[in-house]
């Protein structure tokens, strides 16, 4: 077996198939990145899994999951002030959390250099929105590389690191979901011996304090730095022109995954427009872009999400008095979703109707395929919690969700957690909903990893301002949604912390104990002011995977006794574990591939028809 650890640590050059996220880790090693920090979030968690594939003692850099993205950014920055090349990585919306610190960084003289690897999520594959973080980079004056595939992700990280070290600044590597998760064969370079950890902080390297008078001077310096960064990217020809003989005088300016979609479409085209592929999307290389515009009558700016390139390129053309027609976004749909090969094909057909042949038609079904909404796993403690909590609530009570697996409580059959903003927002929203409200009681949900991430300030505010809410802390002892990363709860006991905050009513209950949990929620909701119920059960996906690895493990399942079952279907319609199957005549049985034999469903049956089998190895 080819172990990822061995692949990543190989010292001589080699070729290997890796995922974009994994290739980044090899680039970290080759560039002697010394300190890496993160908070887990899709599409970047495989960067961390690749790092964890290397045992601590062999890992050539320090790594931590910090408590949130802002803290992760600050830790990486601190380490870089000591002269260590550092890297922080997180998902798209993580930048919102980190922003307060991030916008200051280009003002600073970061002597070790720093790279932000951000996983944007056009199409909102696994995020609450598809925000275009490119909007932030103009404001913060930072250089941004955008690769289109894993090989470029590897190469551009190395560029970003080299530039960050050279100019003592922060540089961004912008990935998107299908660049992070793509796999291809990549040629890797050798690893040279690198420096040890440094501790060279000296305030003379600064200034590092942006007091009002200094802030403007620091801004001026950051602008000069950005010019130098631009010169580096020009010298290394990161942007590329493909083709130079378009008889039609048509061109396309494009970057990232949209470039690959364009190239695929042009495999079938009647003629070939020239392409300017941008590898650096901020700051823009004016000279190269103007030269490209001058050579063409029409240029399409093919740009995923917002129209930032389009506006800036149009401005350049206006200033240079160019007559080239620049085609950008024309309707709202152009701003929405990933620029997949399908989407790009349709845009090209619309812009240049003579460019591409009509598409082939597909297979038609004469029946509907039932949708498959995401749901909680078999045995999930959250399912038991929602089943029990629902019994404690009145119809008019308001339930507020937060980010995490428990957000799925909104789906049928539970329909709990009706409002969602972002990490840690539930207590604050619930407090607002509860203000001067004597008609509806308000319950907020919050996961344990999110509690530490951004949940604490909102909760402290409920204490400080005497808000009347019940918080149900959905504790599963891990960061489950993103693949089971550890969190601060390993060292900090939540109940002790809540008590220390001055919250008097704090109780904890295992969620499999449905009756007790229902009672505890009822009691908590009768309390005036803040009350907390910790609804606790370990993540069963994680727990079952660990159990199955043990030699001689016997997998038990539940069974349904058909002579007892009266087809009340409570197990299906109110509890809703995916392991239950329903046949056309209404009979219920168990999908043995899914059932983990936890038995959390047994108490839901009024006829006690659910039992256990003997298990199988």
């Amino acid at each position, binding site marked *: *077996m*080819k172990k990822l650890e061995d692949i990543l640590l190989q010292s001589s050059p080699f070729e290997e*198939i890796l995922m974009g996220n994994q290739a980044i880790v090899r680039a970290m090693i080759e560039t002697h990145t010394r300190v890496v920090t993160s908070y887990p979030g899709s599409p970047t968690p495989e960067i961390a899994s690749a790092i964890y594939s290397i045992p601590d003692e062999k890992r050539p850099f320090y790594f931590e999951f910090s408590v949130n993205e802002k803290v992760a950014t600050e830790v990486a920055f601190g380490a870089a002030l000591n002269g260590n090349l550092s890297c922080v990585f997180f998902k798209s919306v993580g930048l919102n959390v980190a922003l307060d610190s991030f916008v200051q960084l280009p003002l600073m003289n970061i002597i070790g250099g720093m790279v932000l690897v951000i996983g944007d999520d056009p199409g909102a*594959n*696994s995020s609450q929105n598809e925000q275009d973080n490119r909007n932030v980079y103009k404001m913060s004056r930072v250089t941004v590389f955008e690769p289109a*595939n894993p090989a470029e992700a590897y190469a551009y990280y190395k560029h970003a690191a080299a530039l960050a070290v050279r100019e003592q600044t922060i540089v961004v590597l912008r990935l998107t*979901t*299908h660049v992070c*998760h*793509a*796999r*291809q*064969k990549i040629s890797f370079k050798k690893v040279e011996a690198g420096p040890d950890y440094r501790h060279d902080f000296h305030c003379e390297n600064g200034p590092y304090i942006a007091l009002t008078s200094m802030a403007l001077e620091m801004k001026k310096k950051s602008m000069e730095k950005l010019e130098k960064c631009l010169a580096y990217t020009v010298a290394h020809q990161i942007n590329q022109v493909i083709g130079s003989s378009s008889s039609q005088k048509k061109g396309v300016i494009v970057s990232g*995954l949209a*470039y*690959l*979609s364009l*190239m*695929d479409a042009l*495999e079938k085209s009647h003629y070939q427009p020239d392409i300017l592929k941008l590898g650096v999307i901020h700051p823009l290389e004016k000279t190269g872009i103007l030269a490209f515009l001058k050579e063409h009558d029409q240029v399409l700016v093919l740009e995923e999400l917002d129209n930032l390139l389009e506006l800036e390129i149009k401005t350049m053309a206006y200033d240079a008095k160019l007559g080239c027609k620049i085609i950008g976004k024309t309707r709202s749909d152009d701003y929405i979703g990933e620029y*997949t*090969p*399908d989407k790009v*094909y349709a845009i090209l057909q619309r812009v240049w109707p003579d460019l591409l042949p009509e*598409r*082939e*038609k*597909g*297979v*038609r*079904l004469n*029946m*509907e*395929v*039932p*949708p*498959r*909404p*995401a*749901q*909680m*796993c078999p045995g999930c403690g959250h399912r038991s919690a929602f089943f029990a909590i629902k019994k404690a609530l009145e119809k008019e009570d308001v339930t507020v969700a937060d980010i995490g697996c428990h957000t*799925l409580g909104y*789906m*049928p059959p539970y329909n709990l957690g009706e409002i969602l903003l972002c990490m840690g927002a539930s207590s604050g929203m619930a407090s607002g909903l509860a203000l001067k409200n004597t008609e509806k009681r308000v319950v907020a949900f919050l996961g344990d990893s999110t509690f530490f991430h951004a949940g604490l300030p909102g909760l402290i505010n409920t204490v400080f301002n005497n808000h009347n809410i019940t918080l149900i802390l959905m504790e599963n002892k891990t960061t489950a*949604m993103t*693949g089971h990363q550890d969190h601060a709860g390993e060292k900090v006991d939540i109940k002790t912390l809540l008590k220390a905050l001055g919250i008097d009513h704090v109780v904890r209950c295992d969620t499999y104990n449905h009756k007790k949990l229902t009672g505890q929620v009822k009691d908590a909701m009768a309390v005036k002011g803040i009350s907390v119920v910790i609804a606790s059960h370990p993540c069963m996906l994680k727990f079952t995977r660990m159990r199955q690895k043990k030699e001689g493990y016997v997998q038990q399942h539940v069974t349904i006794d058909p002579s007892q079952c009266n087809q009340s*279907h409570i197990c*299906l*319609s109110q509890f*809703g574990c*995916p392991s*239950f*199957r*329903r046949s*056309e005549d209404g009979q219920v049985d168990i*999908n043995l*591939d*899914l059932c983990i034999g936890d038995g959390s469903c047994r108490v839901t049956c009024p006829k006690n028809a659910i039992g256990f089998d003997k298990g*199988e190895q």
Partner: protein
Amino acid sequence: MNPFNIHITGVGGQGIGLLSQALLRGIDHAGITAIAVDTHGLAQRGGVVVSRIRCGRNIHSPLIRAHEADLVIGMEVHEAMRALEAAIRQKGTLVYLDATWQPLPVRLGDKREITSGHILNVCQAADVQAICVDSTHIKDARMQNMALLGTLARHQVIPGVDRAHYHQALADLLIGKMLEENAAIFNAYAG
């Protein structure tokens, strides 16, 4: 080789990741250029998981345009049917497991379950070659993917990729008892 597009679909937890990686590496061992990508937003939570592999010359994006998959591999009946509508090209090939993980609306009694019979009817009408793989006797659901891999090898569904290449791929990805058990199922289906 012209571009050959493979769309793999199933439900989170079915072992689609290993199948996709084994295919990608098998194709690579056959000396054919290949790229792949997984889409697994909430796959761990019983959602749909899709993986795509593209191989041959002049391939760029790992994503495949609608109705341009030469081969659809379905690990579950509902997802195989969904991919027939969304992914497969006319006269393409479908290889699927006769396994059913009921979606929530079926369990709630709101929607009708899709069966293997429905799939065969659609394939016949649309001139899609369908190969149904019976894996009901494989106790560990996570190894049912090997039944699919073996069937792909047996029928040489991916041009130029044979049994030996898949064996090399499995040896890249697995070790010890896991390799033995998976390879045994693969062999049984590869014939």
